[in-house]
Every structure is written in C-alpha cells, then in structure tokens.
C-alpha cells in the first residue's frame, strides 16, 4: 500500500533526477562533442578541473562569492536581527517584508536592475560624481578588478533578507529571563549579544550558511545576465562553465565532470558546516 502512494513521485523523481545523476557520472569519463561517438578518457576530465586554468579560476571565484553570498549576509543579518530583537522597534513587519523581498524577485530581474545601477551612466557612478569622487566612477561590470565584487554585492543584497529573517526567528525563541538576568549583572548590549544571543542561534547560523553557500555555488543566471563571465574570465563560475562547455564549446564530458565536482563540493561544504555547527552546540 505505501508503495502505491510513493510510485508517481518516485517514478518522476527517478527518471528526471536519479537517472540524470547517474548519466552525468557516466558522461564525465568520456570526451564527447554531443554529436559523434565519444571516447573513454577515464578521469582526465576531473584532472582538468585542477589543471585547466580557466576552470581553476572558476572554482576560485565561487569561493570568493561565498564571502559575498554567505559570510557577509550572516554578519549583516546578525547585527540587524539583534537590533530588531533587542529594541522593540516600530514597523517590524514592514521591515521584514522589505528586506525579504529580493528573495522572491526572479534573478534575471535582479540582474537587469543591478546592471542599470552599475552602468557607466548608472546611479552608482552618478552618486560618486555627485559627491566629487569622479575618480572612483567606472563601468563596474566591465572592470577586471571590480566585476567580481560587483556581482558578489548583488548576492549579498539577495541573501541578506533571508538570513536576517531566519536569525530573527531564532532569536525570538530566546526566553526574555535570560536577558533580564544578564542586565541585572550589568551586561551591555554587546556583552549580551556575545553571551546570550550568539550561542542561542548557532543552529540558525548553520542553516543560513548552508543555504547561502549552496546559492553562491549555484549562481548561474546572475552571471549569465550581468557579465557572461567577463570581462575576460574575471567573473566566470563553475555553473557558467558547465553551460558554456556543454552547449557552446561541445565539451560535454568536461561539462558533466564540472557539474559532478560542483555537487561533491556542495555536499562536502554542507557536511563541514553541519559538523562544526553540531559540535559547537554540545
């Protein structure tokens, strides 16, 4: 009887998730252009992930993006949530709605909006010129040094709200007696934060890191629409390389290998984050 209820879900899931995973592993050990007969190359495609400078660079960029998508939003979210939790400010529901909004807007729309901000005649440069910092104005997404941080900042903007709301939910579960006791001991806002708030939301921090790290490693549409990996290779990321190699260059096996490595990386980082999170709670 249970298997009858499971059947439709499992059939679809197996055909369009499990089977493609297995096929990706199979494809990754072939050199194949998508048309002719492929040749078996063993683990060469995986070796290329380490030796191919462009792929190495892409994975390096993904790690930098983790700072912007994950670490920065968690830092910002901790401050914002602590403020909202401590000072019973007015307009909390409004603030929550606003800061969470970037999460529901399609990434393509986000990319279009930020492209206009970063454009040579966009509002960021206009603001810099307005305060006399003409020297800093530049085409942000076309700049070899600043394009990756510029894309990363968009990630910070997107993740910030999710992390804040997540942490806020955790903090609201801390019993207020704990704060009262701390205050009787003469603890200020900062000590209160490190002694009570921070340890209490370890679980939420772990979840926030997991979610945002996955988001950072999966960034595709943002890069596709804002920079296309450029200028040069300065914003290319693994997911973009998967697309480019499989569907533009005809390096199907290599693309599959990059996808597998990306998956393994996501699982490994998750495992580490959760291990550390578990250990610090006990």
């Amino acid at each position, binding site marked *: 009887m249970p298997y009858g209820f499971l059947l439709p879900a499992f059939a679809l899931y197996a*055909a369009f998730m499990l089977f493609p995973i297995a096929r990706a592993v199979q494809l990754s050990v072939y050199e194949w252009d998508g048309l002719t007969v492929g040749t078996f190359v063993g683990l060469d495609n995986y070796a290329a992930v380490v030796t191919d400078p462009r792929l190495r660079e892409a994975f390096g960029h993904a790690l930098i993006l983790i700072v912007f998508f994950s670490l920065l939003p968690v830092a910002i979210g901790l401050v914002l949530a602590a403020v909202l939790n401590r000072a019973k400010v007015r307009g909390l529901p409004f603030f929550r709605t606003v800061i969470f909004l970037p999460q529901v807007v399609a990434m393509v729309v986000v990319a279009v909006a930020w492209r206009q901000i970063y454009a040579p005649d966009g509002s960021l440069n206009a603001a810099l010129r307005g305060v006399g910092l003409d020297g800093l104005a530049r085409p942000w997404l076309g700049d070899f040094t600043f394009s990756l941080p510029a894309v990363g900042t968009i990630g910070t903007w997107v993740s910030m709200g999710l992390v804040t709301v997540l942490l806020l939910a955790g903090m609201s579960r801390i019993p207020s007696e704990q704060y009262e006791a701390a205050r009787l001991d003469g603890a200020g806002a900062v000590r209160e934060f490190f002694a009570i708030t921070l340890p209490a939301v370890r679980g939420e921090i772990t979840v926030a890191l997991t979610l945002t790290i996955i988001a950072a490693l999966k960034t595709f549409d943002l890069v596709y629409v804002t920079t296309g990996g450029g200028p040069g290779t300065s914003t290319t990321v693994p997911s973009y390389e998967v697309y480019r190699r499989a569907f533009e260059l005809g390096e199907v096996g290599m693309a599959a290998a990059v996808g597998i490595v990306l998956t393994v990386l996501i699982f490994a980082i998750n495992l580490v984050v959760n291990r550390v999170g578990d250990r610090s709670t006990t």
Partner: protein
Amino acid sequence: MMTSRFERTANYVVLIAFAAFALFPILSILVTSIGPETASIAREGRTFHWENFTAAWSQGQFSRYMATSVLVSVIVVSVAVLCSLMAGYAFGTMRFRGEQVLFYVFLLGIMVPTEAIIVPLYFDMRSVGLTNTIWGVALPQIAQSIAFGTYWMRAYFRGSNRSIIEAGRLDGAGTHRILWQILVPMGRPAITTLVLLTFMWTWNEFLIPLVMSPSGQVRTAPLALAFFQGQYVQGTTLLAAAAVLVALPVVVVYLFLQRHFIRGMIEGAVRE
C-alpha cells in the same frame, strides 16, 4: 526596556539604511519603468508613462512568453504537489521496508544542483524528442519540486494528529479517504505554502528553460527578458518595464501571502 536614546537612534539609522539598500534597486527599476522613454517624450511633461508597459509587452512578445510561463507553472505545480502529497503521506503515516533509505534518496534531490543534471538531461531528452516541448521544460522541474515537496509534506503528516487518523480508520475510512477527505482539507495552510513556493521557483527558473528549448519555442518570461536585454541594450526604459512585468506575478502574490513565503523558506530550510 531600558535603552538609551542614543542606542535607539542608532538602531533606527541602521535599520533604515539597510531597508533603503534592500529597496533601492527595486524602486529604481520601478521609477525607470514609468519614466519617459526619450528626451522628446520627456518634454510632454507627464509624470507617469504607462505606455512603456504596453510597448515592452508587444515588442518583447510577452503575451506569448507569459502564456508559456503560466502553462509551465500550472503543470509543474499541480503534478509536483499532487505527487508530493501522496509520497509525503506514505512517509509521514506509514511504516514500510526501506522507508529511511528511500527518504534520504528524496532528500538528495534538494541539494543536487541543476548544473549537475542539466547536461545529461538535455542530450537524453533530445534523443527521445522531448527538447523544445513543454514537457522537456516541465518534467525536470517537477522532479526537483517533488524532492522538496515530499520532504515538506512528510513533515506536515508527521505532525498531524494521530488520533484523527485512528478515528477515521475506526469509522471505516480507507487510506485514500483518510488522505483526501480528512488530512488534505486540514492541511490547507501547509499545502498552500508548498503551492506558492513551487510556483515561485518554477516562474523564476532560468537554466532549465534556457537549455531545454534551444529553438526558443518554449521560452518562459524570465528568458524572454534576458533576450530582450540582448536586443534593446540602449532602451533602458522598456527593459525596466519588461523586468517589472516579469517580476510582478510572484511579487504581488508575495505581498498578499508573505507569511507563507517566509514561513516556507525558513521552516523548509531548518533540517530535522
């Protein structure tokens, strides 16, 4: 609460600064989208240029692409939610062999990135003639949504009241009747959340429709926006108007039912 005036002011400054940061890109694209398209139009002196939306709609052929997006969303949401309900019911209320292993297999799908499966999906679906069809775009997204949906519905069925199921069974209701006539009506909030999240993910999805329909026959609205950008690099106003149109359906639903979105994404994320 004893907070100093300085601290209160500082708090508000911090919050307002970040609210402004969160809102600025959205507001600026809204302002651009209703602004004048050219300098000569600006001289007419009107504040709101709603005609930008109709112009973007027709120039970008959005009636066609929005219709595709609606169709894909309806298929993915209805099939995925239905399958997830049944699978979640089995995992949440029944004991059977291989239960745990199977559940972990489903969980796997939440973490596997689309990038890992998109390559074989494209070439295998091409060989069976499913690329450039609505099913080529919908089926992979159904599979992804089933992974989360099963996990989500299982949590609901686990938390549902055992005694209600027992009472139903004593009344002679079969497993099907218990699901469809007792648990599903009671679980409306949880199901609504799942419907909304699945709708949002499907509507906003980019990589799958991009790859699965290379000819552009089954182009969804977000893709149409990306291509619209390629064509109208100089037309900032129309591009902004098109962007607003693409974001609008999900944003409007979010503004009315935001508690579902926030709860779903927060609770759905918290691991067991």
